[in-house]
């Protein structure tokens, strides 16, 4: 325990003062934390910001765009982190128990938002904050304790080096056992470029190295506990619209059966069946041993019980236990199962679960970690990495996770992600990544729209910017031909826009299987009293997507960055139900830029930005690129 004076909570000046405008749904306040000056302060959330960006991802992108200058080193004190909730967080709206972390990624150099479930986000908002901006860099390890309108920067020397689980236990014992904690593990402390932020022990703001940014600021953790509630504009109507959304979730085959029964790993067999389960670092699209790592097998062998985030009836989370060992945790989810399984040619489910648990404890992104190990396996099999791991070697795979988390031995090379690793050994094409972010568990050669979505994602290869799998494979809201390119640009844009809006409301993207744009607009309208329509939401999503794009353009990214690894563009799969196909990216990309109102180089035009009320962004682009 620390000295009492340092533990005293500081009531933040400016918190809900007389005359402040109350915005239904939002708390109306943003907490700003200056780690260098050790100051915490409050600033109002403007009505204009809420109308233009809602919250979450949108709000964070707006802050980053305005406050983080072009060329900022992501691991420098000048980079900032925004922890943001949305207007529906803590309202009880279906699947609203999430939060976003927005920063400039050290892995990709792009704008980045990473999103996590659990209970942390709800408590952050209940403290009275829509968002928290963390800036500067602490001289020594520290953690934040936020309790309602009070906040304190505390020393964290004594817990520096702890795993995320141990960190959470220690901080709860020092603050409040009911507090919710988001922390980094040894990986984030060492600024591993694929490190994550872990909250509620098992939930991750996983991708893009957001843990490394937190580590660079020597911020070990954030603990939150609050008692405030956002006001709801129309309680009865909000309850009614929530009920309609809940009914939709309870009637959709994916959200009523597949996810509750098998979790996200239900996709292992689905993707393998269509020949799009990337195997052995995307050398194949079919994994003979898929059944050994499927959702059905997980349920049979390691499943203990279902776990739900705050305000969620789907409960896709799995508490699991490795039989015969004193090892339990949550997951692995589909992406993690794939990354440590098919991607590495590993069929040992217990090893996959162990690798997943280790990632949560070290604070690592499972997708990038598994995919980087798969890249190392291919480098090794091609003779570039002497005594490196071999495909299928489960033991080596597990031990590499620890080595990456500790940046020890070969793990140091792998800790920078697959692109830097492959470049170091002269084979950049072995990195299955876009903009430096490892591609998740869907081989786009069998799913054309997903290929375009990966290529045009503003944060690098991400399946959630536009989850085209939903329509191209799962038939939600309807099944479209996964091999065709016709119409894919338009649908990718629609899903990117609505997804950006959902991320800015900070709802779980799984709700999208069942809920339609009108459902989302109904929830937002009745909670905030602002008559948002579905079309408004799509426009807000488009604004967020374009502002992200401007941020990246400002950093020098253009069409060249909107590509896929050569393997996916040139080498057809040789087996399975997606064989003889590659991604026809160029024509889809041309159409995509045209429909987006961007130049042929992928730069948003001044008129597009003006239409989206992004005047400031437009001005910067015009000045920088003379468009």
């Amino acid at each position, binding site marked *: 325990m620390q000295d009492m004076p340092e533990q005293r909570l500081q009531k933040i000046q400016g918190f809900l003062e007389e005359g402040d405008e109350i915005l239904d749904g939002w708390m109306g306040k943003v907490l700003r934390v200056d780690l260098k000056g050790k100051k915490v302060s409050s600033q109002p959330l403007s009505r204009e910001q809420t109308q233009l960006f809602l919250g979450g991802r949108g709000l964070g992108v707006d802050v980053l765009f305005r406050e983080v200058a072009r060329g900022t080193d992501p691991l420098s004190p000048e980079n900032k982190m925004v922890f943001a909730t949305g207007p529906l967080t803590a309202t009880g709206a279906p699947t609203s128990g999430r939060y976003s972390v927005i920063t400039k990624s050290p892995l990709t150099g792009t704008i980045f938002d990473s999103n996590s479930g659990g209970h942390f986000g709800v408590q952050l908002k209940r403290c009275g904050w829509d968002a928290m901006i963390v800036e500067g860099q602490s001289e020594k390890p520290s953690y934040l304790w936020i309790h309602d309108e009070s906040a304190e920067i505390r020393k964290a020397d004594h817990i520096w080096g702890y795993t995320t689980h141990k960190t959470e236990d220690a901080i709860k014992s020092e603050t409040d056992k009911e507090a919710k904690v988001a922390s980094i593990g040894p990986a984030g402390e060492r600024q591993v470029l694929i490190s994550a932020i872990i909250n509620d022990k098992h939930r991750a703001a996983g991708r893009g190295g957001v843990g490394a940014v937190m580590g660079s600021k020597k911020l070990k953790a954030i603990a939150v506990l609050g008692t405030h509630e956002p006001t709801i504009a129309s309680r009865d109507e909000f309850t009614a619209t929530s009920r309609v959304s809940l*009914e*939709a979730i309870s*009637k*959709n*085959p994916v959200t009523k059966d597949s996810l509750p029964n098998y979790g996200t790993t239900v996709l292992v067999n689905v993707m393998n069946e269509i020949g799009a389960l990337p195997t052995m670092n995307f050398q194949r699209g079919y994994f003979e041993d898929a059944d050994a790592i499927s959702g059905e097998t997980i349920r049979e062998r390691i499943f203990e019980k279902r776990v739900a985030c705050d305000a969620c009836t789907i409960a896709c989370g799995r508490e699991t236990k490795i039989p015969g060992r004193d090892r339990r945790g949550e997951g692995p989810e589909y992406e993690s199962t794939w990354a440590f399984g098919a991607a590495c040619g590993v069929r040992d489910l217990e090893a996959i679960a162990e690798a997943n648990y280790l990632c949560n404890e070290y604070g690592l992104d499972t997708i990038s970690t598994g995919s980087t190990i798969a890249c190392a396996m291919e480098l090794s099999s091609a003779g570039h990495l002497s005594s490196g791991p071999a495909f299928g070697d489960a033991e080596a795979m597990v031990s590499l996770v620890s080595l990456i988390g500790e940046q020890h031995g070969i793990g140091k090379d792998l800790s920078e992600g697959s692109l830097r690793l492959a470049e170091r050994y002269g084979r950049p094409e072995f990195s299955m990544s876009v903009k430096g972010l490892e591609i998740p568990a869907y081989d786009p050669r069998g799913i054309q729209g997903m290929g375009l979505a990966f290529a045009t994602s503003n944060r690098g290869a991400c399946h959630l910017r536009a989850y085209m799998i939903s*329509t191209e494979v799962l*038939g*939600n*809201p*309807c*099944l*479209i*031909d996964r*091999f*065709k390119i*016709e*119409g*894919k640009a*338009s*649908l990718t844009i*629609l899903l990117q826009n*609505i997804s950006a809006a959902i991320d800015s409301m900070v709802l779980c993207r799984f709700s999208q299987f*069942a*809920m*339609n*744009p*009108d*459902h989302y607009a109904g929830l937002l309208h009745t909670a905030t009293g602002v008559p948002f329509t*579905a*079309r408004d939401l*799509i426009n807000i999503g488009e604004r967020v997507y374009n502002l992200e794009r401007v941020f990246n353009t400002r950093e020098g990214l253009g069409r060249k960055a909107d590509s896929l690894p050569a393997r996916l563009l040139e080498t057809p799969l040789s087996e399975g*139900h*997606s*064989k*003889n*196909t590659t991604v026809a990216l160029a024509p889809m990309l041309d159409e995509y830029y045209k429909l987006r109102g961007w130049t042929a180089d992928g730069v948003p035009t001044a008129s597009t930005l003006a239409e989206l009320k992004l005047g400031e962004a437009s001005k910067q682009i015009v000045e920088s690129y003379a468009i």
Partner: protein
Amino acid sequence: MRISSQSLRQVADLLVEEQLAGLIDHTELKPHVLRRKIRSICDEADTHGFAAVCVNSCWVREASEHLRSKSSRVGIASVVGFPLGQMSTESKAFEASDAIAKGATEIDMVVNVGKVREIAASSADESRTMRNFVREDISAVVKKADGAPVKVILETGYLTDQEIVEACRISEDAGAAFVKTSTGFGPMSAYPAHLKLMRETVGERLGVKAAGGVTNFLEAIRSIYAAANAPNLLRPDKFRIGTSNGINIVNSLSWAKYDDSWFTEEVPCRICPSNYVSKQPLEIQTVYVKKCKTCPNNGYRKFKDF
């Protein structure tokens, strides 16, 4: 059968959620269903404005009382002779009569599929006998339905095109109000080609019901294109969709408003019954496969994902 993007878009433009809901029979026919589920589908049908609930005859009283307690306008369709249609005419007639007495407002009966197939397979005299049998089988139910509309389930996956046409004509002769594709327990779902054939045969005189495998708005729109592609047919007395996914269909229609690209033309084989013959008896499968070989769209079968 090919359905162009433009055609699908045109159908979608005719539809609003409430209207689509009014064409849906909210269906629960599983053998293991519990009472609370029946009450639940009644509540849902009432909330969403579906045309009817479709249940097994043993649940008619439950559904009727529950809907009456809500003063609901939702109809109650009872299946009869379900799912095989191989009961005696008397037993089908009794089941229909009993269902009506207990509150059914519509009857969905299964035709005697075997007898329909005998018509084409028999000599002229025997064929006539079989035709009369099928007609009597249906008309006995129509009489006991006491004015309530009777939908005749043809189980199209067991029939050739010629037999589908024959069954439609007999149904009309026997006084049926609708012809319906499938039970959902047979070898095939509702496919546009069968629906189109049924509509062409019965014209605007009878209704057509697509049942089996319609789970989202795009499948619903394809069915409507095939069997109800005119404003005067988009009425609950001329077209229905039988599905347990009604809520999902109506919910998903909202997405159609925000992009035209959902309506790109599907590879014709993917919506063709000849591509889904694996559960058919061999002699029927042979007919479908033969038809496929002479189809102008046969080139698509060389496409990778079949």
